[in-house]
């Protein structure tokens, strides 16, 4: 079972490597759309990348309400099966 810190660290590296977001812009509170200037397609691709990198199954159809990086962390954590 991954910790929230581990998931955050993975999200941070994906945002920097794949989405070219500056490190200093990333925090738990940062809003994906208003602070990081991503859009809905980026949000899907962020999830697809996390899905691949973390080896989990994220149901992108359930992710409409994600706004902050903390929301993403929590959503990813909730997607990880309890027995892992």
């Amino acid at each position, binding site marked *: 079972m991954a910790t929230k810190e581990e998931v955050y660290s993975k999200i941070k590296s994906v945002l920097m490597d794949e989405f070219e977001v500056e490190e200093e812009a990333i925090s738990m509170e940062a809003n994906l759309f208003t602070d990081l*200037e991503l859009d809905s397609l980026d949000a*899907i*691709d962020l999830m*697809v*990348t996390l*899905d691949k990198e973390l080896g989990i199954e994220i149901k992108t159809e359930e992710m409409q309400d994600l706004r902050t990086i903390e929301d993403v962390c929590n959503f990813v954590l909730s997607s990880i099966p309890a027995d892992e």
Partner: protein
Amino acid sequence: MRRVVITGVGLNSPLGNSYDELYESLKAQKSGIEYVPEWEIIKDLGTKVAGRVKNVDLKAIPRKFRRSMGRVAQLAAVSTGQAIADANLTPEMLGSKRCGLAFGSTMGGNETMFEYMPEVQEKMSFRGQNSMAFLKMMSHTVAANLAQMFEIKGRNLPTCSACTSSSQGIGAGYESVKYGMSDIMVCGGAEEHHYLSAGVFDVMAAASTKHADEPHLSSKPFDEARDGLVVSEGSGALVLEELEHALARGAKIYGEIIGYGTSCDGAHITTPSREGMQQVMETSLEDAKLKPEDIEYINAHATATARGDIAESHATHAIFGSLTPVSSTKGHMGHLLGGCGVVESVICLIALNESLLPKTMNFKTLDKECAPINVLGENTEKDVNIVMNNNFAFGGINTSLIFKKYQA
């Protein structure tokens, strides 16, 4: 009648990344063709030479726009940015409904397609595929992406017709301005380097295979020793503008487009028809209300294939005889496919403005099956006023553009 002038030029080619660089390369008789070592691992691929675009910073395109662009659209974006800056177009002009775009390429992003499809097919699943792949591969990826990036909101005409993609783009832009649908059209085309393009011509025995050791000798348009075309990459963009609109804002004018024809042979899917080629040149002359003797230089399509060069020479000879200077600049840089029409149009502007009629690289002896046209074997300095650019594509698509030195 509304007149159509060119007020901006941008390009990325194996012979340089601007009008000036292209001019200097032509003047210095440089070759842009090189050996491609990466292609050695491809079984049975005979051709191992290509012209590639160098020294261009594609990462300078903001990620917001780059995310949905393959290399083909990225090259087009850099060229288009250059043309728009050159023309000094403001965001207000670009965003007006009177400003449109006509741009094409043979393929969307080949590199993306080759990454995407095998994974999907192997797993029979789209899981793990990001949302951008399709946007990089789709046939109108160049026109769609350019419109987003430069916020061009008028008519958008994707002209995806293989080797006439960019000449049809220019033609569509010319007609849009001439017939009053737009005041400004951003036009052109692009192609990215990929072994798919080389392989397609290779299996048809149309690609050059004999000169991997001396790449600069590989493309020999019209020459009896030619052994096929060299598949290259490149992009270019022209800003076309209605004359009064350009004059009112004091724009620099590179030249005027005064004639355009496009047609289809309607005959064979790949074998070119000399009748079709002749017809399109005649249509362009009629549009410009010119006689054949008014044309002072012709930039030929001549890719250095056996059939294409012969058919084109006969079509050209039937109209222009043996005196009009003709050259194919594919000897210098190979065949830019979707990018060739626009880069060769820029070469026509160089002929008009710099009085340089470029030679046909590697041309020594006209193939005896060609008609006796006046193929330039040396760079020629000559003041010319009216020139023609011809391009032909698979599917029998033909285009002929006529450019004139700007006179008030």
